[in-house]
């Protein structure tokens, strides 16, 4: 033992030197630092108090809205595919004939139209105990019974469907389940019958499922779909980009505070990235939360007669993964790009890093690259086929529109720099834009892309009028409807005409019996066929220019150089013709008929044929009933042109009801001066619906940006009001500030749209045509959006101009 005891070390023990400085913490691994910084950003986003929350909520709401639209867009292929497969599964166009058996049924189309809506109808008649049953039904409806879609049932049960109920009198015994419907709003029915006879338009089937190959999408249509997708999705991407920047000024101030406590510039960028990633990840969740109820809601939507089942709205897995990764990564990149323009200093000061002029050269690159992809295709696409260089066009159009997007900020900046003069409100707006036109340009870029794309599409639409939306040649001014009764209905023209003439709302009817003939000395299979029309004089005058006409007269039409030479035709005075043409409607194939010989009277007069109301040139033999007994014309059909009274509501529906009463195979069609193919109509509708949605989305983004900017300037607004600035001056300034970039954007959109449209037209070998009316319409729509944004911002502007902003305590 030493005699000395050692006391426990106390705080006063140890070296007498001043307290040692704390050891510097070892340098953390870069990955750990990154994770810590990103986590700090996430904490700011989630726990940054009211300010942080506001920014996170704005960002996640904006990103969420964009994500919901993207999810919806990625569901479109499945939506279309599911419709297509259900459509195929329920059809059988009789492409493969089958023998009569226990498992066969007769099947015919009984489609109709009701007050502008198409009603799909099929009439079925089982031929045995085990007939095929279309999807959505458990059994075929019996004679006098119907199975209807829920939408049709609702219509038939309502007062609105009263007239249709008369046309479809069958007892409703079943409702078609979803698997038998294109969508929940489809009007369709299956009717049971025991009156069908095989042949003509009545097929024999032993199964359902379309056996024919689906028609390939025409190249033009494919081109339109590609452009529409690009046009509609790019603004959504622009919107998401803008949403990520929401609340950026406040974020910068927060980062400045971080620098004050020692964060370096790189660290602040990582914190910002963490904050942006958190906001966008929350946005993904918000997007999913919006998408799921929206999906259900879509089941209730009836947009121009088209709806969708919620179950069909299913995004493709690959695209979902792309969105899930792409959106947060994009958000971080956008955030970091946004930080390039500011210097965040430790003294809590955030200054713009000088007003750098935007460079033009790189902004032209995407435009040039896009055109480089499109120009080689200028020689034309093979229309009607799908052998389109899909990716090349998609990439080309996308790059051109991205180029337009990139060019816009440069143009707005250049335009703002050159602006001089104007009132105080204009000066305030112009100066604001000169200082920072990026925010405004970003907001407007979505509109520019949408409008440029819409202009290009409008041009393409206008040009395809002759190609797809062609003139039918029909003359609705001569007759609004045509009722056709096939020979199998066993009804004479006078019976049908009389029934229609008595129909409510019918002004005039022209009935005719139409058959065919060949010269008696020729083989009916390969002889020159002439049409034979039997009708009264009033009707014949609709078909040919003739002077006097009495019952018992016969006429032959002048022959045009394109027709058969006179030496082979039977349509000449004195010729003997065979009225019994082979029966092509027989399911087993062509059947010869016993010849029915008739001599064209020697005194038959030659007249000049007219086109009938359907637009078909009348030719051949025109006879009055006393001259030719229609019972001698096997296979002749009855056509009745109907003029309706515009003053009678639903006159056409009454006509359709009368036609339906004739029999299931009678058809009643409305004559139209133009016809649009269903595919194009659907695409056009989709475009308008999409463009409207996109404009509203962009409008929402602009409102948020404007409000945010106004909030940032609350104090300044109060000060301006304090020294007497008129509120209207500030309101106009907000309007100009929105309007100027939009004007530049719309001008750019018009030029780019016409340019892109010209390229697309050249590609499709269509003549150059600009629909200036539509162009004006689209630009006016963009302009209205500006006004809407300004008007929506006004209440906030008024509120922010209150003197509260001057209070500091």
């Amino acid at each position: 033992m030493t005699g000395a005891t050692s006391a426990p070390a106390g705080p006063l023990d140890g070296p007498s030197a001043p307290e040692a400085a704390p050891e510097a913490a070892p340098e953390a691994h870069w990955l750990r630092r990154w994770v810590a910084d990103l986590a700090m950003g996430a904490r700011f986003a989630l726990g940054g108090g009211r300010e942080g929350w506001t920014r996170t909520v704005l960002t996640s709401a904006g990103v969420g809205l964009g994500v919901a639209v993207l999810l919806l867009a990625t569901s479109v292929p499945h939506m279309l595919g599911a419709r297509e497969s259900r459509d195929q599964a329920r059809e059988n166009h009789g492409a493969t004939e089958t023998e009569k058996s226990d498992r066969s049924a007769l099947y015919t189309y009984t489609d109709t139209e009701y007050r502008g809506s198409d009603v799909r109808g099929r009439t079925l008649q089982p031929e045995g105990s085990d007939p095929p049953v279309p999807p959505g039904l458990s059994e075929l409806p019996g004679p006098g019974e119907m199975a209807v879609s829920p939408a049709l049932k609702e219509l038939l049960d309502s007062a609105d469907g009263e007239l249709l109920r008369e046309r479809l009198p069958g007892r409703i015994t079943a409702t078609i389940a979803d698997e038998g419907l294109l969508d929940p709003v489809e009007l369709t029915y299956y009717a049971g019958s025991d009156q069908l006879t095989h042949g003509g338009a009545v097929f024999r089937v032993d199964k359902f499922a379309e056996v024919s190959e689906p028609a390939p999408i025409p190249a033009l249509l494919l081109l339109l779909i590609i452009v529409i997708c690009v046009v509609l999705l790019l603004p959504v991407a622009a919107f998401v980009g803008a949403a990520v920047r929401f609340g950026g000024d406040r974020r910068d101030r927060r980062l400045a505070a971080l620098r004050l406590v020692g964060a370096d510039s790189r660290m602040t960028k990582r914190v910002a990235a963490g904050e942006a990633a958190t906001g966008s990840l929350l946005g993904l969740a918000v997007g999913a939360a919006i998408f799921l109820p929206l999906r259900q809601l879509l089941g209730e939507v009836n947009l121009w007669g088209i709806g969708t089942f919620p179950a069909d709205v299913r995004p493709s897995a690959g695209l979902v993964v792309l969105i899930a990764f792409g959106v947060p990564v994009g958000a971080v990149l956008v955030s970091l790009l946004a930080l390039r323009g500011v210097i965040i200093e430790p003294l809590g000061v955030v200054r713009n890093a000088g007003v750098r002029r935007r460079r033009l050269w790189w902004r032209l690159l995407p435009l040039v690259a896009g055109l480089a992809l499109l120009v080689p295709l200028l020689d034309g696409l093979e229309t009607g086929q799908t052998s389109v260089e899909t990716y090349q066009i998609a990439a080309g159009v996308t790059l051109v529109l991205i180029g337009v997007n990139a060019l816009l900020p440069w143009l707005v900046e250049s335009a703002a720099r050159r602006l001089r003069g104007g009132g105080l409100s204009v000066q305030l707006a112009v100066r604001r834009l000169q200082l920072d036109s990026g925010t405004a340009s970003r907001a407007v870029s979505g509109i520019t892309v949408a409008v440029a794309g819409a202009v290009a599409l409008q041009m393409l639409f206008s040009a395809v009028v002759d190609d797809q939306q062609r003139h039918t040649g029909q003359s609705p001014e001569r007759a609004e409807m045509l009722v056709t009764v096939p020979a199998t209905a066993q009804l004479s023209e006078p019976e049908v005409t009389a029934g229609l003439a008595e129909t409510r709302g019918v002004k005039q009817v022209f009935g005719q019996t139409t058959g065919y003939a060949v010269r008696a000395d020729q083989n009916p299979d390969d002889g020159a066929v002439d049409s034979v029309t039997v009708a009264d004089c009033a009707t014949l005058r609709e078909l040919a220019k003739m002077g006097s006409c009495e019952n018992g007269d016969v006429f032959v039409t002048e022959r045009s150089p394109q027709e058969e030479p006179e030496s082979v035709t039977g349509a000449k005075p004195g010729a003997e013709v065979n009225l019994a043409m082979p029966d092509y409607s027989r399911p087993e194939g062509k059947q010869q008929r016993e010849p029915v010989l008739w001599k064209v009277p020697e005194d038959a007069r030659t007249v000049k044929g007219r086109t009938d109301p359907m637009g078909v040139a009348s030719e051949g033999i025109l006879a009055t009933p006393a001259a030719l007994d229609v019972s001698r014309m096997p296979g002749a059909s009855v056509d009745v042109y109907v003029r309706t009274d515009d003053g009678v509501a639903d006159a056409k529906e009454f006509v359709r009801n009368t036609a339906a009463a004739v029999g299931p195979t009678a058809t009643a069609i409305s004559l139209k001066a133009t016809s649009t193919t269903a595919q194009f109509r659907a695409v056009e509708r989709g475009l308008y619906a999409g463009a409207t949605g996109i404009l509203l989305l962009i409008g929402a983004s602009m409102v948020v940006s404007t409000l945010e900017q106004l909030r940032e300037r609350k104090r300044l607004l109060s000060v301006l009001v304090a020294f007497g600035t008129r509120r209207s001056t500030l309101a106009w300034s907000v309007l100009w500030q929105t309007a100027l970039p939009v004007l530049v954007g719309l001008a750019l959109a018009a030029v780019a749209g016409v340019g892109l449209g010209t390229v697309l037209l050249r590609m499709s070998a269509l003549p150059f045509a600009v629909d200036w009316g539509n162009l004006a319409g689209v630009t006016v729509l963009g302009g209205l959006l500006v006004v809407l944004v300004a008007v929506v911002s006004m209440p906030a502007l008024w509120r922010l101009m209150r003197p509260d902003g001057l209070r500091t305590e």
Partner: protein
Amino acid sequence: MTASTSALLTASGLHKTYGSTPALAGADFVIHPGEVVAVMGPSGSGKSTLLHCLAGIVPPDSGTVHYRGKELSALSDARRSALRRADFGFVFQFGQLVPELTCTENVALPLRLVGVGRKEAESRATRWLERLEIDDVRHHRPGQMSGGQGQRVAIARALVGAPSVIFADEPTGALDSLNGERVMGLLTDAARETRAAVVLVTHESRVAAYSDREVIVRDGRARDMAGAV
């Protein structure tokens, strides 16, 4: 209290409450042409609210403010705005310059608001900038100059319209003492030269020293240290 015939601006019995917080509780005030009055008091005492009521920016809950014999609360919002444009000038502590406008344009702003053409307004603005020795930054934007320069621009803007009353709310609050002194010197000299009255809200005694008279606001009531009120 009745408006004195020589008084430019008088207030009597002003009451103002924000939510449940009383800001003014029967405050009285008077200022004569060319007079510089410092309104002092601790934070939250109601100084700024008194200034806002005097300038017709905020209507009092009760009480009256008379300017040249006219009762402000009887005027419409538009007339009060017109009055502020034509007769009043303002200097605040910060956040008062329009960031996207140049100094000249900021100073010209009040003139443009009363309809003076841009060239004429900017020419008069330039003269004031020269007088306040900041013409070298006339093409700069607020973000490109120091706080002291910014405050001098604000003073030029307050004076350019030849106002009868200048309301200055903590005009040196964001400045260091040297710059604060210079700004106050410029403000009071220019005001006296143009016979403009100055209502100077401050909590700093050295700033109040530039005034002719001091009014202390405490618990929403104003007490004239010279015994005038």
